[in-house]
């Protein structure tokens, strides 16, 4: 069953790629190089998946604190790692897009800043895990930090739009397309979003199982 689902996901993503390049019309208002707007079908879902990682980690952290089951702690850590991966991908694709559109890799627009802050947070979470040896203590402290992060990070979405300097008076780059998109574009975007979310959970599942096996192997070696 799992293999079937994996193949289904593969097929879905192929459809998304085809749709992004051939099905979706190129017309997205306000872009100097319309062709580059296709990146939105990948860049935006990657960012979404990164945030999914944050929320999933928070949920597993709460579960761990209530049930104290090490599996939940492992799931939370894996969610953060994969969220970090997607976050880096989103940042890189975003920078590429910004370069093509505006000529600058980085311009501190709200979305770029937000994803960067989230990545910093993920990195800090992983640094904390590295610094605690005892598994129970590590799980406890990491879970607390993940939840603290969840409380604090939304403020960035209030706060960050205020720091846009007058260097870029143009409207925000990344959030474009949402209002001006026609049906085909919307379909591909949300289809891709769904695909990337499924991809997140699939990779998460694989990685969790991998880490569980690695742990068992290490325990047997003694």
């Amino acid at each position, binding site marked *: 069953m799992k293999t079937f689902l994996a193949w289904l996901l593969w097929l879905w993503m192929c459809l998304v790629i085809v749709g992004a390049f051939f099905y979706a019309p190129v017309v997205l208002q306000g872009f100097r190089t319309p062709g580059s707007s296709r990146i939105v079908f990948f860049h935006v879902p990657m960012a979404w998946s990164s945030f999914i990682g944050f929320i999933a980690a928070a949920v597993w952290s709460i579960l761990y*604190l209530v049930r104290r089951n090490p599996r939940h702690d492992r799931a939370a850590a894996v969610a953060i790692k994969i969220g970090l991966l997607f976050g880096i991908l989103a940042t890189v694709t975003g920078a590429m897009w910004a370069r093509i559109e505006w000529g600058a890799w980085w311009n501190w627009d709200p979305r770029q800043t937000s994803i960067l*802050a989230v990545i*910093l*947070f993920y*990195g*800090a979470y992983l*640094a*904390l895990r590295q*610094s*605690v*040896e005892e598994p*129970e*203590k590590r799980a*406890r*402290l990491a*879970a*607390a*930090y993940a*939840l*603290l*992060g969840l*409380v*604090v*990070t939304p*403020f*960035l979405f*209030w*706060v*960050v739009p*205020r*720091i846009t300097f007058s260097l870029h008076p143009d409207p925000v780059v990344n959030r474009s397309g949402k209002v001006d998109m026609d049906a085909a574009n919307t379909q591909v975007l949300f289809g891709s979003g769904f695909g990337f979310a499924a991809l997140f959970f699939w990779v998460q599942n694989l990685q969790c199982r991998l880490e569980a096996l690695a742990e068992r192997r290490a325990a047997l070696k003694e």
Partner: protein
Amino acid sequence: MSRNTSSWASEAAAVFAKEWRCEFRTRYALNTLALFAFTTLVVVSFSLGPMGVARSQGTAVLPVLLWIILLFSVAAGLPRAFVQEEETHTATALRLAATPSALFCGKLLYGLTLVLALEALVTPAYLIMTSLEVTSPWLLAGVLAAGGYGLAAGSTLVAAMIAQARSKGALFSVLSFPVLLPLLVLTVELTRGAASGDPAGVSLPVLLLYDASVTVAGLMLFPVVWNP
């Protein structure tokens, strides 16, 4: 046999009093904070040169530097509140005797008074040395108070976390920065507003909301962090 001769508030007050009593006898945190703050202050002022910063750029740059000085001074001196308990092993007695929420509040109040004292010392010196003119001093005072509280609250909780880990010094900076980033962006913008006379807008309520959120998060998460 044991009468309730005090209450939760009295517990928190006892922790607060103990912190300051120990602090006055060693003066470690005060010295560290003051030394760090003044060294950074001198470096900043010296680098800006005798002519200082041009008026037009002053409001853009100077508020940031003030909060960087405050942030790093706090990172140098505040985590000790928890780190020292673990290192001297007094944490064992505290774990067995104290109510976690009261302990957290006591430490938080201690951190807050430290930060406010630091701000009271650094801000006038900074304003003088950089010739930064402040149009709305009351707004500045408000930002320092609310922002200082946020610094203390966030730092106290993160300090409790890293006190039980290795490489505490470096780890504190790494962990606290993402948590304090929203706070700093707000306070810098509000300080800028206080200097140039812009109204606070929605930033001040958001800052207070941040303070409240971190406080609630601290009260809920501290028992988890403190006890197994």
